[in-house]
């Protein structure tokens, strides 16, 4: 069960994930990122502070956007991951393929730097 909220701050789209992303709910994350990209945002932040669990289905969603985000020059930064969630990314070395920061401020700063 997951709730995904989107809000905009200083020109960035913030996707907040609340709950668990598994094989039953990864489609909702996919739709939220697709909408954000489709609406033309060039800075997308993913608030993971209330993300309790992620399985490979969720990791796969992030992986599947890496090339599109790069091609469209969209800054994409995740922040606020709990240690056990970050560990899931790290087991396969995916943490190195995505931009991950601790706080929203750091994530915004990085998104601004990347979009110059």
């Amino acid at each position, binding site marked *: *069960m997951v709730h995904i909220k989107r809000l905009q701050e200083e020109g960035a789209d913030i996707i907040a994930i609340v709950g*668990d992303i*598994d*094989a*039953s709910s*990864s489609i909702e994350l*996919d739709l939220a990122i697709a909408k954000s990209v489709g609406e033309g945002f060039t800075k997308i932040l993913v608030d993971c502070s209330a993300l309790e*669990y992620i*399985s*490979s*289905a969720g*990791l*796969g*969603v992030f*992986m*599947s*956007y*890496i*090339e*599109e985000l790069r091609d469209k020059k969209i800054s994409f930064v995740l922040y606020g991951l709990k*240690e*056990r969630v970050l*560990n*899931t990314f790290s*087991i*396969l*070395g*995916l943490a190195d*393929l995505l931009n991950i920061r601790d706080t929203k401020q750091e994530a915004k700063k990085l998104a601004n730097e990347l979009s110059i």
Partner: protein
Amino acid sequence: MSYQYNIGCSLNNLKGIREFIRTSLDGQGVSDLEMGAIVLALDEMCSNLMIHAHHCNPDHNISMNIHIPAKGEFIFEIIDDGSMFDINHFEEPTITHLVHEKRKGGLGIRLVKTIMDKIEYLQENGKNICRLTKSV
């Protein structure tokens, strides 16, 4: 000590499976990170089985047994009667390949193989048993 959980093959039941695993391992000296990794690996195995062997039919059941010895390795068994798929014979795509192909699948089996120490398949009384072993 042993615990058993039976559940229909609906992806909505994965959360219940994760809670069952956490409850069974609670108080066994498993660290948060190890607990997270074990829960993840078993979630991946169950969701693969539900999707590929049972097409998410909630009338099909799978069982999970957890054996906790006084000392040594934890043993997790996932039992079903669908078609058997031995992940030891599956060559998972590289991460680079997945990114390039924009594929969303293929990471789960890699996670399970990384997390678990041993993955074995057995057949008993017409049932498939996937036995996963993990030293903690």
